[in-house]
């Protein structure tokens, strides 16, 4: 009975979704995209927290993104060049829509790379920084260069549909490996990502969690960078992943590792077609 109810609910969500995705979200502010998805789906996850919905209009992450815009265009590093020559997959300096097509394979490195890895690559190869320089090393916190830059770059994909490429065999391999990892139980508590994120309405205490199998929920779930209100900082995709791994009591995950890249590839593919909400604001 429960399964029938669940698939009925999923079907109605999917149906109302069809209506939602016919819209053009790319001209809408992040909070408008969220309200539109809430109206279309009635999702408990999306609609939670009046407080956060009220705060989105004045999202502190917007300012962090503005600071990132300045940094992006500033000539920096030993080579004294800006990041405007960096290719995030759509050509050097093309930022619009680049983030929603990541992670992707880059021929110049022979690797599938997410935004953070690609940004580090350009800062090292083009600007001449070393990986140990503080500008590159410090990844977390609203005051870090990396967070400002990632927020800025991601914001240029606000309202655009998640569309990571799967043409290259490595892109497909990463995505498939990520799916395996998503469902794999591990650690002392036998948790998998799916244990929390493969059913609608699951909660950790009072927070409703997004269901990976519901793209309209999952798009908000993966919309990072986002301001974490309770932490007073903008957080990245890798910060979120590290947090989840920590909560599951799995051994730590490293940003840029194959495991990290695989999970991020899978989770972006799972939101395919839905509008990204960038920057987002979360608890």
């Amino acid at each position: 009975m429960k399964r029938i109810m669940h698939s009925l609910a999923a079907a109605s969500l999917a149906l109302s979704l069809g209506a939602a995705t016919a819209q053009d979200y790319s001209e809408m502010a992040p909070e408008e995209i969220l309200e539109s998805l809430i109206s279309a789906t009635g999702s408990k996850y999306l609609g939670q927290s009046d407080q956060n919905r009220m705060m989105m209009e004045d999202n502190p992450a917007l300012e962090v993104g503005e600071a990132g815009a300045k940094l992006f265009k500033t000539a920096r590093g030993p080579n004294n060049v800006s990041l405007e020559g960096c290719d995030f997959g759509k050509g050097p300096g093309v930022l619009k829509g680049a983030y929603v097509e990541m992670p992707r394979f880059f021929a110049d490195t022979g690797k599938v790379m997410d935004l953070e890895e690609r940004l580090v690559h350009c800062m090292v190869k083009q600007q001449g920084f070393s990986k140990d320089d503080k500008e590159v090393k410090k990844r977390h916190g609203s005051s870090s260069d990396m967070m400002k830059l990632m927020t800025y770059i991601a914001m240029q994909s606000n309202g655009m549909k998640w569309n990571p490429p799967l043409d290259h065999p490595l892109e497909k391999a990463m995505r498939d490996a990520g799916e395996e990892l998503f469902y794999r139980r591990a650690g002392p508590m036998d948790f998998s990502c799916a244990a929390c994120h493969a059913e609608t309405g699951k909660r950790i205490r009072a927070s409703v969690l997004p269901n990976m199998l519901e793209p309209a929920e999952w798009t908000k779930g993966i919309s990072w960078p986002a301001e974490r209100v309770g932490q007073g900082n903008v957080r990245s995709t890798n910060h979120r992943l590290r947090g989840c791994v920590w909560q599951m009591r799995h051994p730590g995950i490293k940003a840029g590792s194959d495991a990290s890249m695989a999970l991020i590839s899978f989770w972006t593919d799972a939101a395919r077609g839905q509008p990204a909400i960038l920057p987002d604001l979360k608890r």
Partner: protein
Amino acid sequence: MRVKAKAKGGVIDVKCLFKHPMETGLRKDKKTGQTVPAHFIQEILFEKNGKTAVTAYINGSVSKNPLVHVQVKGNAGDTVKVSWKDNKGESGTEEVTVG
């Protein structure tokens, strides 16, 4: 501090974001156990084209790094000046052209 002023239909929305700890003077530092002294913005003056439009008095009950939003009659091209002062005598000011 950052000030944004946008006009629509004769109403200017003035939004200010301040970088300020807004300490009430009641909080104990978790590491030292000492009470953190009161340090908060007390007054914010909003002027339009050189004339006082709104005077705000606030205290530590307003959130850290406060966002303060008021409305002033006016149009694009007007100037809005925001000046603040805190309980320690620190102050700041910013003037913008209304967009």
